[in-house]
């Protein structure tokens, strides 16, 4: 019935291989890009077909095994796919947003060296991401998990000539690997613990069915979930492993949109959703996740306040929004977390693509005027709303959505998260407070971005400012579609209190319902509380917007005053709390020092010292004794006679 599921990851893989092998020979960019886009679109069509089939199906979980991967004794791992509401949502998001971003890239990457390489990597990414969400066992998921890491590495480092791009790519991969270390450890502990109870499996369905074999709230399940959470932290850029994501903005903008906003970075959230039953069994892990999520949301938002690079603001915003998703997962609002994942994919992809459109335009203008200004620095922008109307409108819509203004998609998802963090049996008002503060800051820095970029006077260099064009259709069409989705995407999950049916929640119920029910996770509280909270969160968002308006439109000299007045605080925030420097000091440099010591100190001095020392001693003894070989016959004869006499003497007198 769902046997064509394998086609979904297969199409992009095919595209990646073909573009990778023969792309270099193809001269036409349209053919390369069109082909890649088309294949992801095919995946989207197959995904849609399967989605609607699942919608009308009573059985909500389907597993399709392609062939056996590894079989050694008790360990049996298959290449298998799992289709359930959760993965159905994910494949739609990945292929849908993926198609749009591929389409966008055709225009955006125009004229770049290695055009075919870019699309080959992008398709490979789509393949890996789809493996991640479709994998029926933890190992197939891990293929995708690492695969997206690889593609992220390749695409961040796409501009191979740039030193910073290479550094960022490496950092992204290595930090992800730290997470993978956690993921693997968790997997091993889980496998072994379940195995010792008779169930040797990596299969998600079987894990969920046999989770009761583990002790609820026990050490094992806590350790396992904490390990998994470490993995999620790496992939989804949570504290303490978030530092790679802002650097990852070295990649081309479509990459940032697809990988570092819409899909890959949400893999951690997806993974927690996939194993929700284990997490539900470990309240202390859930609490950790909620705290880390809320802290990340807050912390990243503070850094976002002071950045001047348009993509970096969005990057910190992504970290912050991911924090929301983790907060949701931590307080048991699984479906809300996934809901936010989806709406975030729409509006953040739109924001990134919009910023890409701006950069594209400015780049074009600078190129025209032979200038080398930074096209990503917001201080060089301003007043672009007239030059780029479509970009502006879609950008504004998405900004409103992310700020949580009612009727836009971000409002529904964010509000549900905040409500759960307050009212859930696993929530706490402090979590809510952090979330609400982060929401206020989000509204502030996002509107700061909009105001600095699109409003006010044009600060672009005079020679370039008349040459900023609106982007071509391949760029604006995805913007419009995503902008539309950013507006209406929330209506599938309108909560009951606002008169909605919350279809999204019910659709995902087969995945999350069991753990919510078993462990009594629910949000409770009066309608009055819920309305109040809603009002508060809208209010703080509006305040944030208002402050941004005051600072950047009404009194544009205010920010400079703030900076001088709170110079210390600004410096800390501007330098990202010196986290990178701290990590260098704590981990990177000691590792290098230890490595050098082991090499030059231990290997060369101690081990080789002993070996060479033995050789040296042997040689020394030999060179001392060689003088006994005088070469004179008499000496030998005397020695012989003395020897004979001694031996005879020994036997006669001894």
């Amino acid at each position, binding site marked *: 019935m769902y046997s064509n599921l394998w086609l979904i990851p297969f199409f992009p893989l095919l595209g990646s291989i073909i573009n990778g092998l023969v792309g270099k020979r193809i001269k036409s960019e349209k053919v390369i890009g069109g082909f890649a886009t088309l294949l992801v679109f095919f995946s989207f069509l197959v995904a849609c077909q399967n989605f609607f089939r699942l919608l009308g199906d009573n059985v909500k979980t389907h597993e399709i095994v392609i062939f056996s991967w590894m079989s050694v004794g008790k360990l049996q791992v298959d290449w298998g796919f799992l289709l359930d509401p959760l993965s159905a949502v994910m494949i739609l998001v990945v292929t849908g947003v993926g198609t749009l971003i591929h389409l966008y890239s055709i225009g955006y990457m125009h004229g770049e060296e290695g055009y075919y390489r870019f699309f080959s990597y992008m398709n490979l990414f789509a393949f890996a991401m789809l493996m991640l969400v479709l994998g029926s066992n933890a190992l197939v998921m891990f293929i995708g998990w690492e695969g997206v890491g690889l593609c992220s590495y390749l695409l961040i480092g796409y501009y191979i000539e740039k030193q910073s791009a290479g550094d960022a790519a490496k950092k992204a991969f290595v930090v992800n690997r730290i997470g993978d270390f956690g993921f693997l450890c968790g997997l091993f502990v889980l496998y072994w613990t379940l195995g010792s109870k008779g169930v040797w499996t990596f299969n998600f369905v079987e894990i969920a069915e046999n989770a009761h074999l583990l002790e609820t709230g026990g050490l094992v399940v806590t350790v396992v979930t904490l390990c998994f959470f470490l993995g999620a932290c790496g992939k989804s850029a949570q504290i303490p492993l978030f530092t790679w994501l802002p650097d990852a903005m070295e990649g081309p903008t479509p990459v940032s949109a697809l990988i570092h906003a819409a899909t890959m970075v949400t893999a951690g959230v997806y993974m927690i959703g996939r194993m929700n039953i284990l997490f539900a069994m470990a309240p202390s892990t859930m609490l950790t996740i909620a705290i880390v999520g809320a802290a990340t949301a807050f912390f990243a938002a503070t850094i976002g306040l002071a950045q001047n690079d348009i993509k970096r603001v969005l990057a910190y915003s992504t970290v912050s929004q991911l924090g929301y998703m983790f907060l949701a997962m931590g307080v048991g609002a699984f479906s809300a977390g996934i809901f936010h994942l989806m709406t975030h994919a729409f509006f953040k992809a739109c924001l990134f693509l919009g910023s890409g459109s701006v950069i594209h335009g400015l780049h074009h203008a600078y190129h025209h005027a032979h200038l080398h200004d930074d096209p990503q620095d917001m201080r060089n922008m301003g007043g672009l709303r007239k030059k780029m109307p479509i970009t502006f409108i879609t950008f504004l819509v998405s900004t409103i959505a992310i700020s949580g203004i009612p009727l836009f998609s971000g409002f529904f998802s964010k509000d549900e998260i905040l409500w759960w963090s307050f009212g859930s049996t696993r929530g706490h008002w402090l979590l809510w407070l952090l979330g609400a503060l982060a929401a206020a800051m989000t509204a502030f820095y996002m509107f700061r971005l909009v105001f600095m970029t699109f409003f006010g006077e044009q600060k672009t260099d005079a020679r370039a400012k008349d040459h900023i064009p609106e982007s071509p259709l391949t760029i604006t069409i995805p913007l419009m579609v995503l902008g539309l989705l950013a507006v209406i995407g929330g209506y599938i999950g309108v909560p009951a209190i606002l008169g909605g049916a919350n279809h999204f929640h019910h659709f995902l119920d087969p995945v999350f319902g069991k753990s919510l029910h078993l462990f009594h996770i629910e949000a409770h509280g009066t309608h009055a509380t819920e309305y109040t909270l809603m009002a508060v969160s809208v209010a703080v968002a509006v305040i944030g917007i208002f402050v941004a308006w005051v600072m950047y439109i009404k009194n544009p000299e205010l920010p400079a005053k703030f900076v001088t007045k709170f110079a210390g605080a600004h410096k800390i925030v501007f330098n990202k709390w010196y986290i990178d420097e701290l990590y260098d000091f704590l981990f990177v440099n000691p590792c290098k020092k230890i490595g050098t010591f082991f090499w030059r100190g231990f290997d060369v001095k101690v081990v080789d010292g002993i070996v060479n020392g033995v050789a040296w001693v042997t040689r020394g003894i030999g060179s001392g004794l*060689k*003088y006994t*070989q*005088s*070469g*004179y*016959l*008499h000496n030998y*004869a*005397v020695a012989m*006679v003395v020897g004979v006499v001694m031996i005879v003497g020994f036997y006669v007198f001894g």
Partner: protein
Amino acid sequence: MISVHHYLLLSAILFCIGIFGVLTRKNAIVIFMCIEVMLNSVNLTFIALSRHVGNMDGQIFVFFVMTVAAAEAAVGLALIIAFFKNKESVDVDDFNMLKW
């Protein structure tokens, strides 16, 4: 009556003279002759004891020793001549190249 002891004593004296010669003389040919003296002293011992214990083995052995001594004389003299051609000397102190 000359007993076997006398033979053995003579043989020992001859052997010591041989050793003394080998150790003190420098002329290779003299050393060579001293070695022959030593060999012959051993031969004497063999024969004396062979007669004393009434076993012919010792006498047979002497033939071997004499054969070996002859072969040795041939090879040894050849070596000395070869060396003399090289160094214009038969002094063993000049034979010192076999060292480190």
